[in-house]
């Protein structure tokens, strides 16, 4: 087993308990998704005021909701196309709110350089999701690139808990640029192959 796989398994123990509680209480998965974004907005406020540890703790709670909504939907038999759509849309709001919190913080500190780095990281984080969504309307699957949402969220938490947000933003920016490029390359290749197969 890999190291990251082991961490995943350890984290699943408490999450199983939370999932079964939500299933027993019959909480609708779309409600869990919505609660998740509200808590993420609170995390963004904490980031905006430079309270990184508080933001980290709130992000952990918010992302528990984010993670369990899909599992609860499966266990309740409430999986729906709208649920998937709602989840994706709400995830974008969560992502954006965290970045906006940091932009507010750095602008308050008069750090235009980090306002720009955060804004660019935000742009490429959103483009990561958009390129996949758009590509999958043209090709079967577009799951390449390292920097997806779970990686981004874990990095945000690491940055908040260890006060290394600047380094985290650089990593998110560079790897998100690569991820967007990977998705464009894959889509181009797949479409070219399809065109050649038809010709």
């Amino acid at each position, binding site marked *: 087993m890999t190291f990251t796989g082991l961490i995943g398994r350890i984290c699943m123990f408490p999450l199983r308990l939370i999932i079964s509680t939500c299933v027993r209480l019959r909480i609708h998965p779309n409600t869990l998704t919505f609660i998740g974004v509200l808590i993420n907005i609170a995390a963004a406020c904490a980031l905006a005021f430079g309270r990184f540890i508080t933001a980290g703790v709130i992000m952990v709670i918010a992302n528990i909701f984010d993670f369990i909504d899909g599992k609860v939907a499966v266990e309740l038999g409430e999986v729906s196309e709208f649920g998937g759509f709602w989840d994706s849309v709400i995830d974008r709001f969560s992502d954006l709110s965290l970045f906006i919190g940091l932009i507010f913080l750095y602008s308050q500190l008069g750090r235009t350089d980090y306002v720009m780095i955060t804004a660019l990281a935000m742009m490429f984080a959103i483009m990561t999701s958009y390129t996949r969504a758009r590509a999958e309307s043209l090709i079967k699957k577009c799951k390449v690139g390292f920097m997806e949402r779970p990686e981004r969220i874990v990095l945000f938490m690491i940055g908040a808990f260890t006060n*290394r947000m600047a380094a985290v933003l650089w990593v998110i920016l560079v790897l998100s640029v690569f*991820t967007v490029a990977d998705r464009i390359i894959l889509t181009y290749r797949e479409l070219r192959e399809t065109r050649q197969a038809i010709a």
Partner: protein
Amino acid sequence: MKSQAPLPLRVLWNAFYWTYERTTWQYDVMVAAILAFVWLTPPDWLNDPMASGCGPVGWLLDLLR
């Protein structure tokens, strides 16, 4: 990237054009590299607005001096 390419070039290409799943050893290596960058890069090098000092690298350099 074609398999005839030199190994370092292939490694670089595979790191850029990422097709590995989570929980693979390649993913673990990438995570280790990212954590090393985040935790070992002195905040002063990045002009971090919220953290200062030289971090673990600075402590190591101080120890070696």
